[in-house]
């Protein structure tokens, strides 16, 4: 099966385009745009970790190492498409237009963080593993019923493929030819569990065969293959040809979340080696260097711009009004039931001016 599903690349690890048919399509503009976005996300991710360490936000799930998968796939979406991210895909969400402030609010335990910008159809991050997969199938099926050309993308990890909801979601989508792309980031670990203990297959792409849908295995650290293959899958979807499964093979450098200690279960030298060899940002940098278009000053400017944007978002997050307890009661139903009304009234009475 591994032979049937080789890891496809456009850019090899030295930054050379090895798929000639893409030479034309890879423009300086595209590359620079991707580079800027990945840089921005990486800075965000590191900032968030440091905010967590300082107790300024709660537990945080970093995605460093997976930027190409997230930026490349999100870039393939059209504005009206639906995105169903997990707790590790705020990279994709932010590059699709989610507000940085809200992403930070989410990690700071605020429901406000689940609200996407106006018009952006980004679902709140899926916490119970794989449960977002049927949602994406359903939202996509709804688009099909409305007769639009919109599609949906569902993100999930290697571990998520073990859950029943993965199976049920893919089966549902395949039966109804729903316009959805199932985008798997195979970072080869589910917390501490390596993929060999997660499944008896060498690839995730081959699971597509169980649903009669196209499946492809790609280098998730090669932003071009991620972008172009996601685009293809979305085109199929828009044309009514149904769902596809993409396995983007990647790696998280850091901990599962800031509450995790990866040295308990894996040799950290592997992450260090991968940073040198297969890093998504570095790879694109090498291509740009090969093209002679890599400009340190431009990078520095991009970094500064991103840092300023992120700092601004952090400030916004920190200036955000404190949690209003009314929110606990006001959004359970469109109209609160008597229980909730009474509980709200009682509680506000107890705390009076404020909470002890």
């Amino acid at each position, binding site marked *: 099966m591994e032979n049937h599903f080789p890891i496809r690349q456009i850019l090899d690890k030295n930054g050379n385009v090895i798929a000639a048919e893409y030479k034309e399509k890879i423009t300086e503009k595209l590359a620079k745009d991707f580079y800027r976005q990945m840089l921005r996300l990486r800075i965000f991710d590191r900032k968030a970790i440091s905010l967590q360490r300082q107790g300024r936000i709660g537990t945080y799930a970093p995605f460093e190492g997976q930027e190409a998968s997230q930026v490349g796939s999100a870039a393939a979406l059209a504005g009206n498409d639906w995105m169903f991210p997990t707790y590790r895909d705020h990279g994709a969400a932010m590059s699709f237009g989610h507000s940085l402030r809200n992403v930070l609010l989410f990690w700071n335990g605020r429901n406000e963080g689940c609200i996407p910008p106006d018009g952006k159809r980004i*679902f709140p991050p899926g916490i*119970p593993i794989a449960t977002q997969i049927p949602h994406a199938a*359903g939202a996509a099926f*709804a688009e099909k*019923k409305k007769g639009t050309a919109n599609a*949906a993308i569902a993100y999930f990890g290697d571990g998520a493929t073990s859950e029943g909801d993965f199976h049920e*979601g893919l089966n*549902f989508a395949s039966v109804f030819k729903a316009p959805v792309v199932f985008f798997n980031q195979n970072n080869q670990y589910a917390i501490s569990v390596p993929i060999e203990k997660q499944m008896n297959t060498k690839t995730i792409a081959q699971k597509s065969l169980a649903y009669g849908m196209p499946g492809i295995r790609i280098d998730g650290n090669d932003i071009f293959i991620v972008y172009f293959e996601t685009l293809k899958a979305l085109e199929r979807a828009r044309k009514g040809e149904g769902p596809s499964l993409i396995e983007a093979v990647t790696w998280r450098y850091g901990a599962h979340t800031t509450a995790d200690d990866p040295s308990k279960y894996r040799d950290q030298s592997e992450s260090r080696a991968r940073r040198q060899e297969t890093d998504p940002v570095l790879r694109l940098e090498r291509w740009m260097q090969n093209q002679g278009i890599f400009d340190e000053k431009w990078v520095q400017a991009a970094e500064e711009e991103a840092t300023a944007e992120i700092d601004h978002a952090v400030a916004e997050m920190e200036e955000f009004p404190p949690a209003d307890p009314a929110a606990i009661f006001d959004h359970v139903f469109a109209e609160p039931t008597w229980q909730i009304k009474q509980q709200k009234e009682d509680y506000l009475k107890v705390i009076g001016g404020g909470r002890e």
Partner: protein
Amino acid sequence: MKTAVGAKTMTLVQAITDALDTMLDERKEVLLLGEDIGKNGGVFRATDGLQAKYGESRVIDTPLSEAGFVGAGIGMAVNGFLPVIEIQFLGFIYPAYEQIMTHASRLRMRTMGHFTVPIVIRAPYGAGVRAPEIHCDSTEAIFTHMPGIKVVCPSSPYDAKGLLIAAIEDPDPVLFLEPMRCYRSAKEEVPEGRYTIEIGKGKKLMEGDDVTVITWGAMVPEAMQAAKKMKQKGIQCDLIDLRTLFPLDKDIIAESVQKTGRTVIVHEAHATGGVGNDVLAIINDTSFLYQKAPVERVTGFDSPVPYFGFEDHYLPTPVRIQHSIEKVMKF
């Protein structure tokens, strides 16, 4: 809002079909999802003829996958549709429990109203029809404890139609329980066209000053029979059909208990953790000083619903209800 014009005599399951038909006709966002609901018209024929009338794009047979189609239904609801999902029997809803618990019921709160899930999940429930195991569960309490979803349970054709239409129009998820034992056991006049019954309101079926009897769904006929027997013995029951299990109708309970001071609650679910205890809590909270006797609960036992050879022993009967009425009267 259309006004009902004529009326027809129908069974509870026919009233369900009629409600679905009415709403499929009125609102193009309504669609039905479930196993065997198309050509087959559902295993209880609740969707009989609807696929022929509205087409496969509105009445959709799904794969056998409750988590899958409830999950997909959530996605469709978020994206503008009003899915009415049939679970073949309540005992087969458990694979979808996670989707209901962590998504359908929470999405409004999670997103402070940005995304909402206006779905209805219909499920026949209860024992007493000699069905195989797991087909007989009455596990409403695992949903009434779940904030963010309403739970409705009619016992008559008229209520069934009006409540189902209200559930479909409700902007939040509603679990709609259908007492399969009552599906064809009685007929009643049901208005044609659209009408609604307010979710959260119980109904007085009999007026009496001596003892309050509170029940719902398939236990309504049993309680009614017991109440009639008691009447012959000179004890007047105030008989309440709750109709909605979350939110409970606090006022109808308090009003009645404050009048009678004595209460018997009847449900077929297990005693421990049953919705009867929520009724008890309302009595505690609203009517403590009016109580003349401890509340009696006549319920299914704290054992799994047994195989049908034993189900008549398991289910509350008019005799057991009478015993409890006499007990609270004698206290």
